């Protein structure tokens, strides 16, 4: 039940920001975000059973939400990053901005907790809308184009997934059964061998575009570049996890034999994204774009873990999803603050800043190190598990992954050195003040906690993954 309250508070709160006076919108949004966080702590203590009520009985559609080890921490990621994004936003952006941010939180919470495929799809599209409006109204003409690209590319994929969803439900109901969209029931569907590849492709396209996996990342550079930094943090931190979550929650149980069949191809796809993202990150001079391509590379890494189809790999992917969200979200937020005071994101314009702004340098360094996978921080744990999963059957991919880890250190250190160290430029910037950034400290604290105590997450994730994997084993998978 608590998980519904999370959504209700976010939704009601989003409308409240519209009616309060303009200057207090940010404060109200932050309070709403905080209430959701408190409720989430309650959810951590009592995960509970969720809610399952009939919604459109004629089509067997139920409002079925709940949280398990797989979704619980992604819900937490959503809650934490949304609060950070609200605090990092300017109150001058107005009530409508905060309305969309909270609406996005509502949609994301719904998506990560939906256990009915129809409900999942509803939220899957609902989350596209806030980002479209945030891109359209809070950035320049280029942002409008990016928003258009974002919505059309993503909807293109998801509409094919809609065909897939309906097809699975229809096939499951044949010949005379009732329609149902419950994920737990649909996994028992028996599809014709001629149909399955098409349905697989329909789901895969949607998830790969949203993640984004190479070569479906066409919307990504523009959207990440043009969006306001807090929005970029949400898109890269939370929304990119939705596609990966879809692989784990829906595709693995439904299509395990197909995953086994196409495994090599999928791994190659993921590894191309991994390498491509790293090389692109090395070439960028805009620090936001370095982070964007680094993020693309990491998504490739997580996808490698999922497609390795081993327990360690999948567990590592689950862990890295949460960790990456926190790290890259934090990094984008710090970069956004830096852009606000520095007025630029270019590597040549900003240099030697650690003399005038040591706190900036410290936070930047922290999140950069976390992103490149320093042991003791959570990126390392996830990457270690993924490589452990890969080594068993796919040594080549494991070796490539390790080489890219080295490259990750290279591109992150490169921008850190470029911006913070070296000879001081003409630019003197004001350092962060404590009241501006007090909330980054707990965010960083969470990252450290995850790094030194990964078991807190994995011990919860393991039971649900066992459940998924057991299911797979029944369908002819060897795990």
């Amino acid at each position, binding site marked *: 039940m608590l998980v519904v309250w999370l959504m209700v508070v976010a939704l009601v709160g989003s409308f409240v920001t519209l009616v309060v006076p303009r200057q207090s919108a940010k404060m109200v949004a932050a309070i709403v975000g905080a209430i959701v966080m408190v409720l989430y702590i309650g959810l951590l203590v009592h995960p509970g059973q969720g809610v399952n009520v009939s*919604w*459109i*009985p*004629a*089509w067997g559609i139920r409002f079925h939400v709940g949280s398990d080890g797989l979704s619980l921490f992604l819900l937490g990621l959503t809650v934490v990053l949304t609060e950070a994004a609200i605090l990092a936003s300017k109150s001058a952006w107005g009530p409508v901005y905060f309305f969309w941010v909270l609406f996005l939180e509502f949609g994301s919470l719904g998506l990560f907790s939906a256990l009915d495929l*129809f409900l999942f*799809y*509803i*939220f899957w*599209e*609902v989350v*596209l*809308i806030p980002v479209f*409006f945030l891109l*359209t*109204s809070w950035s320049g*003409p280029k942002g*409008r184009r990016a*928003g*258009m690209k974002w*919505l*059309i590319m993503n*909807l*293109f994929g998801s*509409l*094919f997934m*809609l*065909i897939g969803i*309906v*097809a699975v439900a*229809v096939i499951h109901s044949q010949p005379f059964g009732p*329609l149902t969209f419950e994920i737990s029931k649909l996994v028992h569907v028996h599809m014709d061998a001629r149909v399955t590849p*098409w349905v697989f492709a329909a789901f895969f396209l949607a998830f790969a575009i949203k993640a984004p996996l190479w070569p479906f990342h066409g919307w990504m550079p523009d959207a990440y570049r043009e969006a306001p930094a807090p929005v970029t943090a949400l898109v890269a931190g939370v929304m990119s996890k939705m596609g990966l979550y879809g692989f784990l929650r829906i595709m693995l149980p439904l299509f395990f034999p197909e995953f086994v069949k196409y495994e090599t191809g999928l791994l190659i796809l993921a590894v191309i994204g991994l390498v491509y993202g790293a090389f692109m990150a090395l070439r960028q001079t805009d620090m936001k774009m370095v982070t964007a391509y680094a993020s693309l590379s990491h998504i490739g890494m997580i996808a490698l873990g999922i497609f390795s189809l081993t327990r360690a790999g999948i567990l590592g992917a689950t862990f890295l999803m949460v960790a990456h969200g926190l790290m890259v979200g934090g990094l984008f937020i710090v970069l956004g603050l830096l852009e606000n005071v520095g007025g630029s994101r270019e590597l040549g314009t900003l240099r030697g800043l650690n003399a005038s702004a040591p706190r900036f340098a410290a936070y930047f360094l922290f999140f950069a190190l976390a992103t490149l996978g320093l042991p003791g921080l959570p990126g390392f744990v996830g990457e270690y598990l993924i490589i452990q999963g890969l080594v068993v059957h796919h040594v080549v991919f494991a070796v490539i992954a390790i080489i890219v880890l080295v490259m990750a250190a290279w591109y992150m250190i490169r921008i850190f050195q470029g911006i913070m160290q070296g000879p001081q430029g003409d630019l003197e910037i004001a350092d962060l003040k404590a009241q501006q950034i007090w909330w980054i400290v707990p965010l960083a604290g969470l990252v450290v906690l995850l790094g030194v105590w990964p078991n807190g997450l994995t011990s919860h994730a393991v039971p649900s993954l066992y459940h998924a994997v057991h299911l797979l084993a029944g369908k002819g998978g060897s795990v």
Partner: protein
Amino acid sequence: MSLFHGLLPEYIIVGFILISLLGNMLSRKYHVASWLSLIGMLSAFVASSHLWSFVLKPHMFLGGGAVIDNYSLFVNLLVLLAGLGTILLGWDERRWGTEFPVLVMLAVLGMMILGLAGNVITLFLGIEMLSLPLYILAASTHTASGGEAGLKYLLLGAFSSGILLFGLALLYGAMGSLAFVNFAKTVATPTSPLLWAGVVLSLVGILFKLGIVPFHMWVPDVYEGSPTAVTQFMAFGTKVGAAAILLRFMDFGFYATPGWWGPALGYLAVLTMIVGNLLALPQKDLKRLLAYSGIGHAGFLLIGVATHNLQGARALLFYLLPYGLAVLGAFAVLSLVAGDRDQVSVSDLTGLAKKRPLMAAFFIVVMLSFAGIPLTGGFVGKFYLLQAALFANQPGLAIGLVLGTVLGLGAYLRPIQALLNNQDSDSTAPKPKWTLGGAVVVVVAVVGTIGLGVYPTPIVHMVNQSANFFWLH
């Protein structure tokens, strides 16, 4: 149930047409006829809902010529909604003269007859009764473009009516019967050329009214030239009437032989969805944009007939409601933005979000419903159509629907982005004014759209009762 009881909504409309004419003669006040028509259509609405529980089993009258069932009542409710919206949007439009509400009611009556038509006579009666008032309404502003629209509509409409009539005559010759239900008994035997020609020609006549590619050429010009309230009426009401009769005609008369007309309609549906939405992309005039989007939506509707199953019939009937609500909302905002003019271009919307935030928000909601985004009725409708296509084992229709939707999305996003654009807005331009009628229509449309998207269960239930053609199982 007697015939009089069953036709109560129609009788009410006829009565109020006469009373309005009388009112126009006796009183010089402008709004007398408008008020009378509002009261008349509201009472017909109530009467239709009252009849709902009486007709759980279809009642046939006049030798199968009039079929009163939940299907005809659902169509009644839809077209009355369209008629009420038209009267409210045209409330303060004094150029049209006092006969405007009477003509609207006459067209509504034609659409209601299309909903209950069970033989070719009532079919033709309904089509003509719908069309003739619309020819006049299209030209009612006395402007050059209005005259062009009216004339074009009249000439092409008369032509298509001729084709339809010819086809119906051939059908009668081939079958020896007028009633659809008797067609079905005869048609099981091998088909004759006469029958073929009859079916094809009658289909062309009906598809013309629905605006299916390649019979869509009249739609953009007529929509653009007609007054906004009338355009709304054509986009919503005419589509409901034409779709209703198409479904009844094919699913009653030819249900046993879907083999030869099903695929043909399927190809037309895909063609219409893609061409309509594709041509909507470059339009600068908002009415033309909505006209092409209306063509695309007619393609979506045609899926429901082409699948030839129970889900298809129900999905078509369901889709009419969210589509109609979105049309009501979109044209209401359009007429508010246009003010006294008849033309509105996409750039006229620039900066609306700043000038009239609420109006802009409502417009965004109905546009998203057109595009089929979840939590709006449009999504549920598309979802139902997809189900129908896949139950009929026709993935091609589903893929056509998806492609059409993505193309349409591109078209609907441009007005949305224009109204959110603050930089290029002309701050000296006057703010659009809210009118009472427009506000009522917009609020009803938006509440209905979101309500259908969040909790469609009651309407789904109604639709499932309405399209309950047991032979399609």
